[in-house]
């Protein structure tokens, strides 16, 4: 299920201007050592547990998937989208 536009805008607003990246401008988040991952809806970079909780609650409410990403040093295709649909992604700073 896609995230309604107003929910996406609310999420961006909650995270603040430095708390999210447009996937079209966040290439480094969308690939790992195994190569390019799939498309995502948004790269969220929550700055606190409260913001992280907001992201998770909103995605759960709208049935939008979350792919956590830390330092992206993995070797197993974990922190990139590999499952075909459109997903949100958050990077845990």
């Amino acid at each position: 299920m896609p995230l309604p536009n107003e929910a996406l805008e609310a999420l961006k607003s909650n995270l603040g201007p430095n708390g999210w990246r447009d996937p079209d401008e966040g290439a480094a988040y969308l690939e790992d050592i195994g190569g390019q991952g799939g498309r995502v809806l948004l790269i969220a970079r929550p700055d606190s547990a409260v913001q992280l909780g907001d992201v998770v609650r909103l995605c759960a409410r709208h049935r939008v998937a979350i792919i956590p990403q830390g330092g992206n040093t993995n070797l197993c295709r974990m922190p990139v989208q590999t499952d075909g649909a459109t997903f949100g992604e958050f990077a845990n700073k």
Partner: protein
Amino acid sequence: MIPHQYFPDLKMLKWDVSVPIDRISTFLERAAEAVNVEAPDAICYAAGHVGDGNVHNSAFRSKTLSVDDRIPAILDRIDQLIWELNGAIVAKHGVGARFRERVSHQKTAVEHEMLQKVKACFDPSGIMTPGKRLKPLG
């Protein structure tokens, strides 16, 4: 298995294996034999965290290893060996999407289904890191 970063024309196979500590030497010896059945010119070596029973077994610098159709047979031989020695084919570097299918054979079908059902309790919509670690139920 990851691509070889340092020899672009050649493939490197790399495992993050755990086996009981007293079986590490047996594993290394038999793993090299198993790799060389499929890729006779492959060079095997290992580094690891021996106290944890964790071995990074590697095979590299081989023209036969770089023939892609040899790789599934090598991976299968090593997986079977690890399980025979009561080990795990992924120790600490994570299963992710890359190893999900192979890891699904590490336990019985019933045990795998139990794991899927535990995850489904917390994530009924399948939205928590989809595509990784466990295949979805059904």
